[in-house]
């Protein structure tokens, strides 16, 4: 396998501009002759499908929910970044680029990040044109808030429902194209295999989740926009159905997997309440604009938080990081929260929580202002915990939230399988080892609205695509594989449910491949995952049949893939003998317990190649070059 990132030459600010000119074009009349499959209708998928259909391509789009509007992007709360500099506070494309490279702990590709920053402004324009009701000031201008890892206000938002509004915008454009017949939409369809013919991605096998029918779809290119794999950990802030099946099937067909160990643990989530817990709920990072994070100075302080005087509180983020304070990046905030809890200063019944306190903001700004900013989040919190955050501080703890890793892609967003493009959270591209808040929405929409319409055209225009149909033997083989797996899952008839195994895997992942990792724990995890995977295939119980709605079967397929992917995450974490961003190896830390990067030896993207079930995967390295942002010890002090 050869990794060619295809980064264009020239100055960083000209690369994308020049590249767009150099990409060949498909003439308007010919676009109709090309087809693309878009798997996923989140921000990345919906924006790509709509934009490609507008250009004239034939698009088929797939999602596992009953409507494209329900993709997991809908749940994003806090906001979306853009270098508009509407606040006149010193923002620029270059600063957004710089902040993102630094925030990613110097493990992202400079050229990609710069492009992202360049198109960020267009995204806001596009969304406003679609009728996205962003928050406005009384003057009628758009309002901004601040997010972690930045000292400017560049985050646009629609209450605490930014993802919902952006997705509904993209979904409405997609709906228009469906209505016009330019996009064929397949809801309640799950991609279960990728079809590769003559070395190119040419189609997918999907299961109709109502009838159970296994169906074949052919196209000239396949776009995976299927989101992240945080659910490998069982408990995460992802939607229950979020899964890795599409990217994992592609990995097994030859797409390299980039940096699987870069998993983001978000500092502000509602803590686990018991064994019944089925998912975790995020409390948006935007809350750290006005909320102050603290724990009692003494671990045995059992007073009501509002009775604890200032002198007995430790505002540990403000104390340790005076210049960024509560708005340090996520990896730093999470690690520090864990640390104070490990020291026994945690709060709440489990002692695995810290306070996020709005007392000062409420007395400074008044309750109505706080309500306007965060009303729905406060309500969500109260629903879950039965505590009123206007009166008593929130209790929060870190949880798995986002995966920076994903399928490796080149500058054109193409994976190592020609014709297979990967967009949004599913790819590894722009966030390095740690994603800054409000940058995932930006990246998903950048990929879908402003990158793929150009680069896909370039791929088609290069030619060389054979005529193939679903009768091709590769379709038959992929279908057999998919059916074989489903049959096997249904025939085991063991004693334990799918959730049982998912929880067991999640526990190993969280304990050993979570917020802090060490070589011994990782080796142990790899061993345990293998064991549990074997047991799963011997003893899982999936009732019912394939030819019906069968949610256990759906879950079983996904969990089977997590059992393999989890091992790769651990392996990647084990080879990376350094700490960077979300990847914290206990062996590699500074005296002040900060992450210690090793640029000399680890300034590369780890791209893993599948070599068969009985062989070890092979790691390839894409060296990272930093011409513009010089790597330094990341400091938020």
């Amino acid at each position, binding site marked *: 396998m050869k990794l060619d990132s295809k980064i264009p030459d020239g100055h960083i600010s000209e690369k994308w501009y020049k590249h767009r000119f150099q990409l060949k074009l498909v003439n308007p009349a010919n676009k109709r002759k090309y087809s693309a499959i878009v798997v996923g209708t989140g921000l990345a998928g919906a924006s790509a499908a709509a934009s490609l259909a507008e250009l004239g391509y034939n698009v088929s789009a797939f999602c596992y929910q009953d409507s494209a509007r329900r993709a997991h992007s*809908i749940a994003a709360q806090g906001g979306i970044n853009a270098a508009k500099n509407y606040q006149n506070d010193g923002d620029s494309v270059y600063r957004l680029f710089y902040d993102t490279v630094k925030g990613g702990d110097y493990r992202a590709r400079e050229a990609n990040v710069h492009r992202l920053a360049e198109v960020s402004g267009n995204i806001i324009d596009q969304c406003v044109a679609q009728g996205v*009701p962003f928050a*406005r000031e009384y003057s009628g201008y758009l309002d901004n808030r601040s997010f972690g890892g930045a000292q400017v206000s560049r985050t646009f938002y629609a209450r605490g429902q930014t993802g919902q509004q952006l997705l509904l915008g993209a979904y409405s454009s997609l709906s*228009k194209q469906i209505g016009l017949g330019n996009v064929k939409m397949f*809801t309640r369809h799950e991609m279960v295999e990728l079809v590769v013919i003559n070395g190119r991605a040419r189609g997918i096998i999907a299961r109709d989740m109502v009838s159970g029918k296994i169906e074949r779809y052919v196209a000239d290119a396949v776009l995976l926009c299927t989101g992240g794999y945080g659910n490998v950990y069982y408990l995460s802030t992802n939607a229950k159905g979020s899964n890795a099946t599409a990217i994992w099937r592609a990995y097994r067909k030859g797409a390299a997997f980039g940096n699987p160990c870069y998993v983001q643990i978000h500092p502000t989530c509602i803590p686990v309440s018991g064994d*019944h817990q089925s998912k975790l709920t995020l409390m948006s990072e935007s809350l750290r604009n006005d909320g102050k994070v603290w724990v009692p100075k003494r671990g045995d302080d059992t007073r009501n938080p509002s009775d604890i005087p200032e002198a007995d509180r430790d505002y540990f983020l403000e104390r340790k990081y005076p210049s960024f304070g509560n708005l340090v990046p996520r990896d730093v905030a999470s690690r520090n929260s864990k640390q104070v809890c490990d020291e026994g200063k945690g709060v709440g019944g489990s002692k695995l929580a810290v306070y996020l306190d709005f007392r000062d903001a409420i007395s400074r700004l008044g309750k109505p202002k706080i309500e306007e900013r965060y009303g729905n989040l406060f309500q969500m919190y109260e629903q879950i915990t039965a505590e009123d955050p206007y009166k008593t501080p929130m209790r929060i703890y870190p949880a798995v939230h986002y995966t920076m890793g994903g399928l490796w892609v080149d500058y054109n967003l193409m994976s190592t399988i020609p014709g297979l493009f990967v967009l949004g959270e599913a790819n590894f591209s722009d966030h390095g080892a740690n994603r800054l808040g409000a940058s995932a929405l930006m990246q998903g929409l950048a990929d879908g609205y402003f990158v793929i319409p150009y680069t896909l055209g370039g791929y088609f225009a290069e030619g060389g695509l054979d005529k193939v149909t679903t009768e091709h033997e590769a379709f038959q083989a992929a279908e057999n594989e998919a059916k074989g797996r489903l049959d096997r899952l249904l025939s085991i008839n063991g004693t334990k449910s799918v959730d049982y195994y998912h929880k067991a895997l999640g526990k190993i992942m969280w304990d050993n491949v979570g917020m802090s990792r060490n070589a011994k724990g990782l080796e142990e995890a790899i061993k345990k995952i293998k064991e549990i995977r074997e047991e799963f295939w011997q003893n899982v119980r999936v009732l*019912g049949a394939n030819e*019906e709605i069968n949610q*256990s079967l759906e879950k079983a397929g996904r969990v089977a893939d997590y059992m393999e992917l989890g091992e790769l995450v651990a392996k990647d974490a084990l080879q990376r003998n350094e700490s960077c961003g979300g990847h914290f190896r206990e062996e590699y830390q500074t005296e002040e317990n900060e992450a210690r990067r090793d640029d000399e030896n680890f300034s590369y993207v780890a791209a893993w190649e599948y070599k068969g079930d009985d062989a070890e995967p092979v790691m390839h390295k894409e060296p990272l070059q930093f011409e513009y942002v010089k790597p330094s010890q990341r400091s938020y002090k």
Partner: protein
Amino acid sequence: MKLTLKVWRQKDAKSKGDFKTYELSDVSPDMSFLEMIDILNEKLIDSKEDPIAFDHDCREGICGSCGLYVNGRAHGLKRGITVCQLHMRSFNDGETVWIEPWRAKPFPVLKDLIVDRSPLDRIMQAGGFISARTGSAPDAHAVLIDHDTAELAMDAAACIGCGACVAACKNASAMLFVSAKVSQFALLPQGHPERESRVLAMVAQMDKEGFGSCTNTGACEAECPKSISITNIARLNREYLKAVIK
């Protein structure tokens, strides 16, 4: 606590369904309603009975996947939340709880608690958009929108498309759903060029899908998990009238 659950079980769209009774003990008040069903499902799998099928995804009240009647009420008794946000502390020890899928002609049951809500998507495809081709947008500040109008548009835009309004309405009307989208775009200047064609197309599709008419009972507003106001329906009626007269 202990609960008696009466759950609608239906094998598929063609089969006839019925309520089945399940007893569940050890329900923690901190569980969400859907986690309670998860626990029941684990028990069913243990005893080799098919688990209950239900739509859900985000489990935090935003994706609109979940939707059930709990004791005859869409999303349960508590106002302003979805059933995935409902917690067991709202129930009493020993209570009997009835769980059913949406009942509305345009939403046929597919299995157990899952219904087909694709008519709502088709209404959106008919006209629920502003035609803004990718790449052609002017600067976001080219058009100013005053704060209060933006807030009103946002109130309407908060709809999650769960279908509770339809399920709550004795006529199975989709007026609240349609009016929320029509209002959002009618309030915003960007939506004005297609204002008339939009409302006509969406209403026509709504009728075609077999949704009933609105008789102003307000049940939709009361059951809407996002508290979308029926003043939107009044706005829809005005928009419609203006478009028809023209």
